[in-house]
């Protein structure tokens, strides 16, 4: 048991994430703290989405909408002077659950390609709702001052505190997603993914399971949105744009689908790739788009699998 704990790559991931701020503070580079914070925030959203995609086999092209819902919940609270963090996060996750329940219940009526189109359409509906809210900046969004306030000893002003809070949320997400995928619910969900007809015929309520997964993933996405709003102190409809949803899917695919760790690694890989291409050329979207096409076409099982394959080959050559 102890040995398997050490072999668990998740533990190592958290060790890296925990050592990182100490190293960054030592060399006085707090920019990297907010950078890694961003990686972890998107990692939470990707982990949540992976419940639907990796374990449920449903391609949702609208989960950025729930990120936006969470961000708007925090932003609007701050706008009206409500600074209590418990209210912020309770509201964000509550509204996220409610909206994903409504959207999921409708979208899951149709399967396959229609499900993709419907999730996209509903996300766009929320996007236009944000654009239409002219008193909250409309298209441009709005920024606010201050952060969610939890305890007097926990001030999110400080990037290091923010980092630890986000890391704690990430750990919580990994824990809950991991537990639920190993539970009966997770097994049922995987059954639905591999053969829905068979799952139905042995008496599973496949619709209910899929909806539960959809709502749970929506809640994690809005948690991520609430953290994102705190991190950037800015909220705009662009958080809900369909390209954000596609990016979340891409993060999962990059890291490797249906593994617990994949989405976090994928989020890191995606954001690093985006930022470094952005430094090289203002037209970074052209190489990025090309990279996406090539990676999805030729590295089907994600970067982790690709790395594993390279390692295996290397070992074989040496022996």
């Amino acid at each position, binding site marked *: 048991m102890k040995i398997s704990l050490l072999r668990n790559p998740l533990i190592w991931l958290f060790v890296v994430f925990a050592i990182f701020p100490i190293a960054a503070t030592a060399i006085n580079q707090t920019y990297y703290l907010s950078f890694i914070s961003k990686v972890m925030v998107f990692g939470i959203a990707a982990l949540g989405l992976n419940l639907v995609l990796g374990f449920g086999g449903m391609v949702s092209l609208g989960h950025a909408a729930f990120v936006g819902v969470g961000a708007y919940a925090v932003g609007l609270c701050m706008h009206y002077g409500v600074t209590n963090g418990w209210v912020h996060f309770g509201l964000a996750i509550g509204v996220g659950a409610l909206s994903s329940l409504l959207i999921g219940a409708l979208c899951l009526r149709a399967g396959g390609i229609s499900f993709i189109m419907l999730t996209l*359409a509903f996300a766009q509906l929320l996007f236009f709702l944000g654009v239409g*809210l002219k008193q909250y900046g409309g298209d441009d969004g709005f920024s606010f001052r201050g952060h969610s306030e939890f305890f007097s000893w926990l001030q999110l002003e400080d990037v290091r505190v923010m980092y630890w809070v986000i890391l704690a949320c990430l750990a919580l997400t990994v824990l809950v997603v991991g537990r639920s995928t190993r539970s009966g619910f997770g097994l049922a969900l995987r059954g639905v993914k591999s053969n829905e007809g068979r799952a139905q015929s042995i008496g599973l309520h496949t619709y209910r399971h899929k909806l539960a997964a959809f709502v749970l993933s929506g809640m994690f996405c809005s948690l991520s949105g609430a953290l994102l709003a705190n991190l950037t102190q800015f909220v705009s409809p662009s958080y809900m744009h369909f390209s954000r949803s596609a990016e979340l899917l891409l993060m999962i695919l990059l890291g490797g689908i249906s593994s617990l760790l994949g989405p976090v690694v994928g989020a890191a890989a995606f954001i690093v790739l985006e930022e470094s291409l952005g430094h090289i050329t203002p037209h970074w979207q*052209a190489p990025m788009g090309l990279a*996406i096409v090539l990676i999805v076409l030729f590295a089907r099982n994600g970067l982790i699998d690709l790395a594993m394959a390279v390692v295996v080959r290397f070992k074989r050559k040496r022996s």
Partner: protein
Amino acid sequence: MIFTLGLFLIQLLNGLQFGVTLFLFTSGLTLVLGIMNFMNLGHASFYMIGAYYAVALTNWSGSFVFGVLLALPATYVTALAVEWLVFRRLYERSHLDQVLVTFGLVMFFNEVVRIIWGTAGLYFTVPDWLSGSVVLGSGALYPVYRLLIIAVGCLVALAMFLVIKYTRIGMLIRAGADKPEMVEAVGVNIRGVFRGVVALGAALAALAGALSGPLYSVESGMGDSMLILALVAITIGGVGSIRGSFFAALMIGVVDAMGRMFLPQLFAIFLSRPVADAIGPATGSMLIYLLMIVVLLARPNGLFAFRGR
């Protein structure tokens, strides 16, 4: 602003004009989805590429008509190349792979267009003989060019109905939409049909883009919003149905135009001015999505869905 017959007619025609443009865009996409079960977000790029080709070729040839007509074969060839390089590797892959690869393509083409033609939107104008206006019933003026778009769109729709109903290729498309394996089993090169449908659909999207060019600015990413509306139209009309996408596209065009114009005014009658101003524009642009939800609740497979699909 007050409600007048002239204003109503103008908005109705604007809605129809946008509707037929959306149909030109949607028709190719719905076939690709229906026949090949292929989720092609890259369709948005063909709309944009068609518009850019039209601008470039109009400037080169000096004739608007030539520019638009030449943009179609140019986009057709581009689409064949993209199909050969990328799409044909995707037909057997999962929807997720299809979505992500074609999303990557959209990102790539949006940026390539910016590199070649610059970040600012291009404007191109219609020739003099198209820039006039006609008088509608109650003294309101309406541009000839928009009427031309409606006419072209309806003609293309009619041609498509005829081709699909009465020709051999139409028969293959219908059969492919129903049971592609069977079509292949009786010795038809279904891959060839696929390739043709993708490229022809791209040419139609290019026509839509080229015709819209003079109305809106020609810019990077102009196809993205069309793509999403097209997906709504396909959801309403039923996947793979040309007839469905025609009626759904017109419905979306008219409902959207009317909603944006008259919904804020309608709210202003019942609600106080600031409240109406706040929720009017938001609900105006959300109206078509609400329409989609209603259709979806009543007919989950769309209004004109194939049997058994």
